[in-house]
């Protein structure tokens, strides 16, 4: 089964060295009985099934329901279950951090590419780049400015470097003038980048 998998890849397009290595490791893990191709496929399907729309739905609910927001900030896994979003037990612990009028949060993983995949799907390429990973911790305001958000100087910036077993999602501030909007309309305002924290929705 794994050999077929490799052949499928080769027919698609030439594989990079990294992709070849990954397929070779997968084949070895299967051969040693540590993982089955089905288990790998299930994980890939789970990850491909998650998109920033999942995170946006969570943010919109938190904006309109203060009790849900409180539960989300104190125990994200359980609160997400209320929305039918399952965070499997074998995935890293998820913590939601709230932007306020005093504090803005920004997420990075300087060591690799840790990312709240269960709510945002796969990370964008720039999130994994050396430039973002090094500059987000040393010049977060400069990075945000390049994404088009200039924060007032008196707001404190908290950069979260997710080096270990934790994954962070930013709960952006609700933009002004959205009081009459429905939950669905609100969710449509929430961008992936605002949930990483490189942009702000509130101007």
């Amino acid at each position, binding site marked *: 089964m794994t050999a077929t998998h490799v052949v499928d890849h080769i027919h698609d397009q030439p594989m990079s060295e990294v992709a070849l290595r990954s397929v070779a490791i997968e084949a070895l893990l299967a051969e040693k009985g540590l993982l089955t191709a089905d288990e790998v496929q299930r994980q890939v399907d789970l990850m491909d099934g998650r998109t920033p729309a999942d995170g946006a739905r969570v943010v919109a609910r938190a904006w309109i329901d203060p009790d849900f927001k409180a539960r989300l900030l104190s125990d994200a896994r359980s609160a997400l279950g209320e929305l039918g979003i399952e965070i499997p037990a074998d995935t890293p*612990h998820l*913590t939601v951090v709230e932007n306020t009028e005093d504090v803005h949060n920004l997420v990075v993983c*300087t*060591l690799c590419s840790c990312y709240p995949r269960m709510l945002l799907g796969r990370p964008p390429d720039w999130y994994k780049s050396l430039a973002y990973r090094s500059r987000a*911790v*040393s*010049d*977060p*305001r*400069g990075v945000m400015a390049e994404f088009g958000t200039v924060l007032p*100087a*008196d*707001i*404190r*910036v*908290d*950069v*979260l*470097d*997710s*080096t*270990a*077993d*934790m994954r962070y999602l930013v709960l952006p501030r609700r933009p002004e003038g959205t009081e009459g909007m429905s939950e669905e309309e609100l969710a449509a305002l929430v961008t992936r980048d605002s949930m990483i924290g490189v942009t702000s929705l509130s101007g």
Partner: protein
Amino acid sequence: MTTPAESVLYSDGAAVRVRVGSPAHHFRTPAYIQGHTGVVDALCGVYPNPESLAHGGDGLPRQPLYRVRLRQTDLWPDYAGNPADTLLVDVYQHWLEPA
């Protein structure tokens, strides 16, 4: 879980220094925070030691993992933002010492 775990040494607000080291094996304490002093923001949990897991070990005893808050102006002498800006980073207990 009932697997062996190191006891939690630091409470919220404790001043801690990140140890300096570059062991030959896998580790998850970035160089840019090593030697710097911060404050425990929260205990995240007690997790299997990734330095053991990465090399086929059982990760035991589990290690307390803390979210540590450091001042940006302490990390980067030329830091241009608000002096109140901070960096929060997850560090395992065996990489911390009292400050």
